[in-house]
């Protein structure tokens, strides 16, 4: 405020009053408004559950398929008459890719978390952490394209000469790109819990003559185990819900197979395929996407809740 500007006159009464009725009204209006903002998040959950269950119910009613047949059917052929809607091929594809990708992401993510939390000098750490975050910000469609551009041709170059047929869309390349994609997730979540282990524990181990390796693997890791397991479960859930990378890498052929070089279809891919396909709104095929979505939602939600439970139930509390 410039010095020659005159202050408006304020009576002492006004200065000490707690405000007009209008102001207290505004205060409560703001409280209500903020509450409504928070309510939006609850409504979102309700919306998801209502949409999925109502439309799934409609699917079961229209297609005349029982819940048990849907959950245990091994064939997914909506074109046949009568159409067959068995979700198992989709669940299989989803689990294969989730398992394969976590097999890549867990060891690498955990090792890199240990490096960042135990070994890295502060300057290296300050450089690498943002790099990992940038990596986590790369959209999944880029990874999908990477599968088509590099991973699949590389697999072909390696395996075709020894007589293994590699399809253009295959489960293995999807596993690799999804695995690479969730490494930053595993490493940043695990690093958080490893760094949270109190210094005193490390120092007492060093004082007893332990080496850095022993401190990392026998003191810090067990102390933070619940958090590390929780991050693994979250990564698994993320791999299950992953869509675009899998659409571009693994293709859309629902089947139960152990051959990693053939195309499989995941639940997410099926949902995309149905929306982009010719199925008319309200037809059983169109409605089946909601039933598959419900199954996907239940699976990921269970894993997320499990992850939270592990974190809380098995946490070693220090201090």
């Amino acid at each position: 405020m410039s010095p020659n500007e005159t202050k408006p006159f304020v009576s002492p009464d006004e200065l000490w009053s707690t405000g007009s009725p209008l102001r207290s009204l505004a205060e409560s209006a703001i409280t209500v408004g903020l509450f409504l903002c928070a309510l939006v998040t609850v409504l979102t959950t309700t919306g998801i559950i209502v949409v999925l269950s109502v439309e799934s119910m409609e699917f079961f009613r229209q297609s005349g398929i029982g819940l048990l047949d849907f959950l245990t059917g091994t064939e997914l052929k909506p074109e046949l008459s009568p159409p067959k809607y068995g979700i198992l091929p989709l669940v299989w594809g989803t689990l294969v890719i989730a398992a394969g990708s976590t097999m890549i992401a867990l060891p690498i993510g955990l090792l890199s978390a240990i490096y960042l939390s135990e070994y890295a000098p502060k300057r290296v750490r300050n450089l690498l952490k943002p790099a990992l975050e940038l990596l986590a910000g790369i959209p999944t469609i880029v990874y999908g394209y990477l599968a088509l551009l590099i991973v699949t041709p590389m697999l072909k170059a390696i395996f075709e000469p020894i007589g293994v047929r590699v399809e253009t869309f295959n489960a293995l390349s999807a596993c690799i790109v999804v695995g690479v994609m969730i490494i930053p997730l595993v490493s940043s979540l695990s690093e958080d819990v490893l760094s949270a282990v109190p210094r005193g524990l490390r120092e007492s181990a060093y004082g007893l003559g332990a080496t850095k390796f022993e401190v990392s693997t026998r003191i810090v890791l067990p102390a933070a185990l619940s958090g590390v397991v929780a991050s693994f479960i979250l990564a698994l859930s993320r791999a299950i819900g992953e869509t675009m990378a899998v659409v571009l890498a693994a293709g859309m052929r629902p089947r139960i197979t152990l051959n990693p070089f053939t195309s499989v279809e995941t639940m997410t891919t099926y949902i995309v395929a149905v929306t982009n396909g010719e199925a008319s709104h309200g037809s059983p095929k169109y409605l089946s996407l909601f039933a598959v979505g419900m199954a996907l939602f239940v699976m990921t939600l269970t894993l997320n809740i499990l992850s939270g439970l592990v974190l809380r139930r098995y946490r070693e509390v220090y201090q």
Partner: protein
Amino acid sequence: MSPSIAEPKYQPHRMARRWAGPLFGIACFLATLTGVLVLSVVLGAVIAAALRQPGAAPWYHLGTNLRELFDLLLGLVQKPQSSDPLRAGFRAGVVGSLWMLGLVGLMAIPVGVGAAVYLEEYIAPGALRRIIQTNIANLAGVPSIVYGILGLAVFVRAFGMKEYALGRTLIAGGLTLSLLVLPVIVISTQEALRTVPNSLRQAALALGATRWQMVRDHVLPAALPGILTGTILSLSRAIGETAPLLMVGAAGSIGVLPRSPFDRYTVLPVEIYNYAKNPKVQFQTVTAGGILILLLLLLTMNATAIIIRNRYARSG
């Protein structure tokens, strides 16, 4: 004579202990480098694919290549959709993505920050707070495609009630993405609010500020860098999302650019997806160019966010 400390029985597995440590450290370091490696492979491969044309300069002509790349990206941003690889570009997608950025920013940031302020500054700890908090944590883990299903049923089709349905419009896509990023914004804003020291709040309240005055004039400004970082990161997530927008109808091809939130649209990642699916090899240049545009946009946003956070984290 007292036993020497160097006697073997006091140093079990000495060699193993001496060697396992550094080896493990190296393994950990290499694992960390995979991240950096992947980042460079992604960029390198995409740039190489973008420049793969007959008659292109060899890779060591860096200056020429850089200029070519620049020309390519500039051209791609201006060209409309086309089934001819030489004339295909991303104008509609870039415009759509910018619209989406604005819409999601306008809708998700106020609601997200509001919800976070309510949870941190207004509501007393108790059952209600715990329910909302658990709910938000779970929402953050819901796969993006499920939000796409929600948007499809609620915004695009309004449960089949034609008069309320928004159809495959920008606003329907924007609402869907807003719901998708809302939990992320709420959680990061809450974290930012928690770093504001309590003494600041108590001082404001002691001077007679109302709760809202305290929040507006003291807590929010103090938490601003953290909030900014979180919102920029979540907006960049919204820009990169493909699956939910495929569900709520970002069109494969549109004739005219959107002029209002109630027009049909497409976004950059969806266009990239459509070009990537195209079996013609010539489309590789187009797809790779599109990915570079997307990555440039996102990496700029994310780097800004990270810089904001690091700067304020140090001085704070």
